[in-house]
């Protein structure tokens, strides 16, 4: 019960960061026009903010959390340190997930023609910023 209350309080704090995170997602999409969707989620699969991953944001966030779990175990068990990013290429596009601070991830959908080098550059920068926003919101909660 206490855990559930704590999680709900955390969730409320994360929502306070939503506007700023959404702003960053929009700026990221402006910098990379070949993105087809952007989403920030907590590591346990809750949507924090999303920019046109229409209707499927919850599904993508939940799947991201599952992929993140596998990714973390993979990097852990092969001695590669903590999870940083995951890139999946499908026949008609990419899905990329980047760690954002200690408790969030950034997931991006992109057209197959995207410049992957630029995608990494821009997304690494954005995920660091989103990480700071989310971790900052959680810290503020701890101080209260």
């Amino acid at each position, binding site marked *: 019960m206490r855990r559930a209350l704590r999680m709900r309080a955390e969730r409320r704090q994360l929502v306070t960061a939503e506007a700023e995170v959404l702003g960053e997602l929009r700026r990221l999409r402006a910098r990379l026009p070949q993105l087809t969707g952007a989403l920030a989620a907590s590591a346990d699969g809750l949507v924090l903010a999303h920019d046109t991953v229409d209707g499927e944001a919850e599904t993508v966030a939940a799947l991201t959390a599952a992929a993140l779990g596998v990714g973390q175990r993979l990097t852990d068990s092969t001695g590669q340190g903590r999870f940083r990013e995951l890139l999946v290429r499908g026949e008609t596009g990419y899905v990329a997930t980047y760690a954002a601070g200690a408790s969030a991830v950034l997931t991006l959908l992109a057209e197959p023609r995207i*410049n*992957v*080098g*630029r*995608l*990494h*550059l821009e997304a690494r920068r954005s995920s660091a910023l989103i990480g700071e926003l989310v971790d900052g919101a959680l810290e503020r909660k701890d101080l209260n």
Partner: protein
Amino acid sequence: MANTETSLKEAAAIEGTIGAALVDYTSGMALGTIGGGNELDLTVAAACNTDVVRAKVRAMELLGLKDEIEDILITLGGQYHLIRLIKARGANGLFLYLALDKSRANLAMARHQLKKIEADLEV
């Protein structure tokens, strides 16, 4: 015939070279880099110059120019940046990127040498 590593070493040996990279412009990722150091992050250069090449390819398409790009020269205050598209067999969508120090480099010579490296390259 030379492989990626040998070709990049030859590029680094060109007078005045700051750094060089072999880049896949379908993905924007570098297949190999040499030099650069703190002065020039070659993975960033690879990603951003991919957009330069793509923009020029697109411009030619729209202009209806049925031709191909041989090289692109960008002149800065203190540097030359040379982009040479690879036309070798089986090496589609690659370019060589060379950053030169303007005060030490001989542009004509560098361009000539880069052409030779490109012709010998086998990926």
